[in-house]
């Protein structure tokens, strides 16, 4: 079989039985997210809660993973949300080596069901699958667990594990692989509820592709002509000899004179890496400097990333300053993961040079959080902790002895052990601080009498919806378009299709001309100078989430794809949005057009929306789900909406935006799929199910 392995692995933690089934009936969902969502729909009845033994976690990859395609080392995990309203279906994504190892073991998906009474780990070595005792691992950090299991199961084993947060079923917890690659969404807590400490994967198989020469040609085409750097930023951060354009926002940070300063053997100059030089792509993204500033240059050892990714977006640093805190001195992460909780501090104490205090706090907090397996919900947990500290609520919610045992002055004095003081207690289910890691929706419910309506609606929190989902990305990115991309999710949307366009670094007029060609006039406004909603924007937003769903299903990194733009002037900077379907055809041997593949990806979105309707027990998604908080309407109070300099939304316009978006998806005015739409996507059984529940 080409692309897919054709097999699902099922592990029951209650009985410790394992089994293999055909995955073929799910191919219509592409794989990954689509496949996993359908399995969850088929196997987890509505009403089951995330920590119930009947709850399941489905880990799935698509035909692309293992094929060698750039950025194909992604895995999607599908499960019930632990932290947002209704505990509806969500998916999380993990990189590292997980996707290729799962395929190498011979599986398209791993279904984890049941619950163990004692700590266990799942050990998959090709077709030998066992559930092993993990008593000795329980209580270990994720780094310790990884090391212990690699020692036991052999070098080359990929380990996914939970830390203290997951063990204690803290809603905002994650699964970590490769020390820092993270699947969030609260899945760590579901692992904990099942007493599942870790999963080990080691396979010696491979992914068969139908047309290897075509795949290789596509790889060369994509890496030479279409890819820029992280988030497919297609112009460099600084003026460079090969480029007409530059952008200070671009993650194409490499340039002559900028180094990996702590590389073994001496500094490595990132230099210029013009389009057409795929072997130099790994020098383009000096992410440690992008995330931490120039001070990180001399501490940078290299860039790392997921299997099969030429971008390398993880900045690895070696920071001797961490020795005094008894921590590892090396770490690698990216984006918010590089500084998840340094912002809890009000001040930083420098160690050896100006600015290294903040850098040390960032890396220290990243190591700590990854070791605890504590998920930040795209900054929501840090924002919540700061909200409660800054507004004087800590003294009111903590027990007197709990409040007294924390030295709050460390926050002001720059003693970064304060971060550990807070986070270790957040991961202690018996400590009241842990209630702040329930997710914003549940925090609001528990403390509403104290915090009123302000917290959930605040700019400090910056949710996209009052269901407790963080904005990632939203109206700060193409206004209504960015905000709409969240609507199909029960967590932060994580849609990068749109922000990769607006952040590409190309001049606005070039961005607009290229996307208007596809979605129509008016689909992309000037940055921070937005216009009222129109249908072109709705089409653009739909494209954003459909491609994201495709990537999460295929499986492919939406943090880089799709290839909307190109770094090449001779292409007019226009990318190629048909590449995914070309890969799909070359890998599976099933010639599939761009439109056909998008349709398959959309099937998963339609199913997930129907599942949300069923979980919520109402069709009224407009008022129960797609509700943006007040801050989005009230930011920059002195600047009128639809004028220069603001990203604020307007209430009637948002309702119009929803109507247009719903129409694009074939949903009714409530935002729920109709029978006609579900049947169009071969989801008649789902329509029947909704009807039987009085929801159609």
């Amino acid at each position, binding site marked *: 079989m080409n692309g897919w392995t054709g097999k699902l692995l099922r592990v029951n933690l209650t009985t410790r039985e394992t089994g293999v089934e055909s995955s073929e009936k799910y191919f219509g969902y592409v794989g990954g997210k689509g496949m996993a969502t359908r399995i969850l729909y088929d196997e987890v009845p509505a009403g089951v809660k995330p920590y119930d033994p009947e709850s399941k976690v489905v880990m799935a990859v698509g035909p692309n993973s293992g094929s060698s395609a750039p950025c194909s080392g992604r895995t999607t995990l599908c499960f019930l949300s632990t932290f947002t309203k209704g505990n509806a279906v969500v998916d999380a994504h993990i990189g590292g080596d997980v996707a290729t190892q799962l395929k190498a073991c011979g599986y398209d998906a791993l279904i984890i069901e049941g619950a163990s009474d004692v700590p266990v780990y799942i050990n998959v070595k090709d077709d030998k699958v066992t559930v092993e005792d993990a008593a000795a691992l329980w209580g270990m950090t994720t780094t310790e667990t990884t090391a212990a299991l690699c020692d036991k199961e052999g070098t080359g084993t990929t380990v996914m594990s939970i830390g203290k947060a997951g063990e204690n079923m803290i809603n905002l917890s994650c699964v970590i692989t490769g020390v820092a690659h993270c699947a969030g969404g609260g899945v760590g807590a579901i692992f904990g509820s099942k007493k599942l400490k870790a999963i080990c994967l080691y396979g010696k198989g491979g992914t068969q592709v139908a047309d290897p020469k075509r795949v290789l040609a596509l790889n060369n085409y994509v890496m030479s002509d279409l890819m820029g750097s992280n988030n497919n930023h297609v112009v460099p951060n600084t003026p460079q*000899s090969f480029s007409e354009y530059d952008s200070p926002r671009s993650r194409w940070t490499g340039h002559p004179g900028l180094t990996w300063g702590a590389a073994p053997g001496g500094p490595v100059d990132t230099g210029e890496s013009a389009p057409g030089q795929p072997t130099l792509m790994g020098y383009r993204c000096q992410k440690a400097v992008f995330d931490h500033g120039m001070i990180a240059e001399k501490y940078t050892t290299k860039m790392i990333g997921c299997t099969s990714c030429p971008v390398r977006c993880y900045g690895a640093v070696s920071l001797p300053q961490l020795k005094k805190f008894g921590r590892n001195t090396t770490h690698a992460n990216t984006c918010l993961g590089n500084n998840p909780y340094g912002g809890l501090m009000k001040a930083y104490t420098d160690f050896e040079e100006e600015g290294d205090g903040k850098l040390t706090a960032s890396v220290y907090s990243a190591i700590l959080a990854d070791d605890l397996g504590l998920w930040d919900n795209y900054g929501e947990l840090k924002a919540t902790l700061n909200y409660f500290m800054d507004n004087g609520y800590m003294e009111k919610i903590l027990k007197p002895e709990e409040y007294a045992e924390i030295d709050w002055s460390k926050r002001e004095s720059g003693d970064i052990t304060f971060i550990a003081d807070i986070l270790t207690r957040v991961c202690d289910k018996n400590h009241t601080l842990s209630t702040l890691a329930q997710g914003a929706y549940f925090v609001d419910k528990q403390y509403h009498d104290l915090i009123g309506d302000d917290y959930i609606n605040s700019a400090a929190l910056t949710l996209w919806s009052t269901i407790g989902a963080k904005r990632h990305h939203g109206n700060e990115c193409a206004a209504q378009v960015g905000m709409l991309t969240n609507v199909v999710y029960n967590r932060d949307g994580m849609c990068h299709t749109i922000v990769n366009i607006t952040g590409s670094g190309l001049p606005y007029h070039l961005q607009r001309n290229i996307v208007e060609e596809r979605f129509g006039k008016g689909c992309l406004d000037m940055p921070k100078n937005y216009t009222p909603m129109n249908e072109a924007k709705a089409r653009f937003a739909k494209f954003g989430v459909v491609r994201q769903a495709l990537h999460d299903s295929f499986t492919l990194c939406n943090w880089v794809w799709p290839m909307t733009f190109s770094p090449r002037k001779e292409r007019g900077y226009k990318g190629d949005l048909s590449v995914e379907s070309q890969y799909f055809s070359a890998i599976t041997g099933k010639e599939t057009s761009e439109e056909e593949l998008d349709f398959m990806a959309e099937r998963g979105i339609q199913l997930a929306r129907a599942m949300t309707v069923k979980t919520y027990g109402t069709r009224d998604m407009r008022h129960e789900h797609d509700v943006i908080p007040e801050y989005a309407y009230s930011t920059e109070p002195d600047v009128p909406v639809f004028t220069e300099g603001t990203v604020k939304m307007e209430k009637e316009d948002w309702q119009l935006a929803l109507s247009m978006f719903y129409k694009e998806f074939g949903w009714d005015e409530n935002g729920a799929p109709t029978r006609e739409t579900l049947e169009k996507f071969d989801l008649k059984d789902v329509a029947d199910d909704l009807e039987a529940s009085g929801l159609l």
Partner: protein
Amino acid sequence: MDNPNEERLSEAGQPGAEQQAGREAAALLAKIIYDRTAQNLVAPLKWLRRQAGPGMDEALLARLLSGVDEGKPCEELKDAAQVRGRKDVYYYSASIMTAQFARVQALIEDKDMLATIAEVTRRDCELYPRPAPFSKFAGYPFRFSMDELEGAAARMQMSDAYADIGVVSASNGAKAFYSSKFLSKAYARSLFEEIEVESREWQ
């Protein structure tokens, strides 16, 4: 954006084959320009004159380069292009350097800091649009110090030639130049806040 000062060369105007020595000199000149360009630098005319060695006297150099200047280069120099700065004329190989980067290098070679800041700022504000962060000028390839940039900002305030150039700040204290010909101060400040603070917060 095409640079109006840049001139690409055609094959027309080939000086003729009667002077083999001239052809060899042209090939050598092309190599000198190419090698300089490969180091991400442009070749100032004054510098090229110093490179003139045996077989390439000043008159021959002038003749060869005039072909480039007039868009009628000889075959050997058909890859060469020029950009005219305030203080010199600069040559580069167009196959490995964009006109825009050559323009930036010409500004740097001219060593007129205020003119450099103003030209780059106006282009950024008109084209992208966005203000030009101080950090852009502090980094590659400009490498001005922050003290120099603060001084330049102050001096530009006192010059009619730079009356449109102002400074905006982000909430983290970072600064950027903007041109009021293309951006209002409020819009420039808002865009700079997005560049400097918001886009890093919402990665």
